[in-house]
């Protein structure tokens, strides 16, 4: 009994139970034919669709295309947001200059930029990468700016009284101090990047997980739609866990 309780208290056990429960209900519902298989394909047919796509090489190509776009667009956003957020958090002038602008653009839904991006850059990779960039830059920047504002004043001032110059304060005090929040901001906003790549591929793409889903819709292949959704979810989960791992490794002091 005590061992069971210990097992249940392990953080992963309940989560896993939840997932398994849904799988079970799904299996039961399809094998008892409670729902039309066209609407709810069985787990085995989804698995079969996955196997066939994997054999054809489609799954891998779609994965590489989508993940590549997300990583390129998000890396660009992360690299720009870091100095920009720090600048907005430390300089009153830059803050007053940019914050209203960012507050405004932030409320423009990124997918609404797709037509414009297509007109400007056509249907290639660039507009998709830029969409992810636009869609995550402002959130990344504003979250980093907030982190900078919460750096205790004493930490900065101590460095100054130890003979530190402004550049040293930025690099050796502010940057390490906000590292945990920056990693967390990236982790959270990564989800938005995933949403956007799928949206972009639904609109215009020759390959990618979103593209595969929209094709599947045309042929009423719900098994392939389910496959796409599950793969997207799994990759998101892996990326999320990756960020958590980096956080645990690099920012042990903050736990």
């Amino acid at each position: 009994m005590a061992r069971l309780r210990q097992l249940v208290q392990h953080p992963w056990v309940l989560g896993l139970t939840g997932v398994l429960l849904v799988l079970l209900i799904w299996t039961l519902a399809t094998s008892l034919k409670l729902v039309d298989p066209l609407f709810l394909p069985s787990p085995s047919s989804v698995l079969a669709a996955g196997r066939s796509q994997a054999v054809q090489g489609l799954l891998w190509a779609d994965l590489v295309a989508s993940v590549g776009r997300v990583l390129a667009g998000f890396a660009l956003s992360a690299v720009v947001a870091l100095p920009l957020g720090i600048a907005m958090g430390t300089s009153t002038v830059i803050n007053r200059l940019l914050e209203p602008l960012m507050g405004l653009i932030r409320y423009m839904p990124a997918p609404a930029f797709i037509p414009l991006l297509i007109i400007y850059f056509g249907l290639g990779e660039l507009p998709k990468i830029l969409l992810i960039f636009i869609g995550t830059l402002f959130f990344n920047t504003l979250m980093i700016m907030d982190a900078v504002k919460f750096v205790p004043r004493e930490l900065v001032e101590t460095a100054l009284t130890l003979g530190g110059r402004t550049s040293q304060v930025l690099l050796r005090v502010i940057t390490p101090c906000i590292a945990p929040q920056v990693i967390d901001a990236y982790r959270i906003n990564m989800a938005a990047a995933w949403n956007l790549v799928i949206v972009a591929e639904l609109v215009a793409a020759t390959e990618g997980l979103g593209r595969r889903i929209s094709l599947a819709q045309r042929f009423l292949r719900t098994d392939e739609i389910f496959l796409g959704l599950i793969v997207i979810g799994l990759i998101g989960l892996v990326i999320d866990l990756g960020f958590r791992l980096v956080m645990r490794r690099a920012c042990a002091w903050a736990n």
Partner: protein
Amino acid sequence: MQLRVDQVDKSFGTGRNRKLVLDQISFSVNTGEFVALVGSSGSGKSTIMRLVAGLDRPTAGVISIDGSPVRGPGSDRGMVFQKYSLYPWLTAAQNVAFGMELQRLNRREIRERTSYFLEVVGLADAARRLPRELSGGMQQRVAIARALAAQPRVLLLDEPFGALDLQIRESMQEFMHDLWQRTGLTALLITHDLEEALLLAGEVHILAPNPGRIVRTVAVDLDRSDLRHLRVSREFLDLREELARCLRGLDPQLSPTP
């Protein structure tokens, strides 16, 4: 070395919100001296410290070191704050080394001086621990070691023991006195704790609030060979009581209504 604070005023805000916080503050600290400013909370103690550190500018008056006016923060005035005194992502040793690294001393010297100053504050064993693994008293000792390792000409202590439990605070006071005797450092201490000021400082300035101003200066000439004994000696208690009465009289909420 002489630190001089000369007729310094400081006000915050503008127009109708303007508030005078410091009014004609003057005092000085010479090499080897330990000087304390005592006042109730809100009397402008931290404001004085920030002006001396160069983290803020006086509205009027001059602060100078050996005749040259203070224009900004610098490593000649090391500061120890009450809160957030250590970098939480650095170990104790890395914290001590931090100032020397900012000043780009060579590696060997940094290593030697780091272990020397950890030794001085009695924390050689804690070198590789993170701040959160240290007690409050140990953290403040690391902060003091870090400030000293950067070779300041005067050490600025803003309620450095204010957040500690009473017992730890007493042992830290003894530690600080011992350190002062051993290293011959020069210090300006700010505290609301009269006992602390009298134990440590050769000169104590009493600060009245609203606006902050020095109302009394006492040269404390006591036998400090045994602080534990001094704390309960007649002479010490009398002086403390007299000054405490003076401090109480400055606070309108505490003085008896006539």
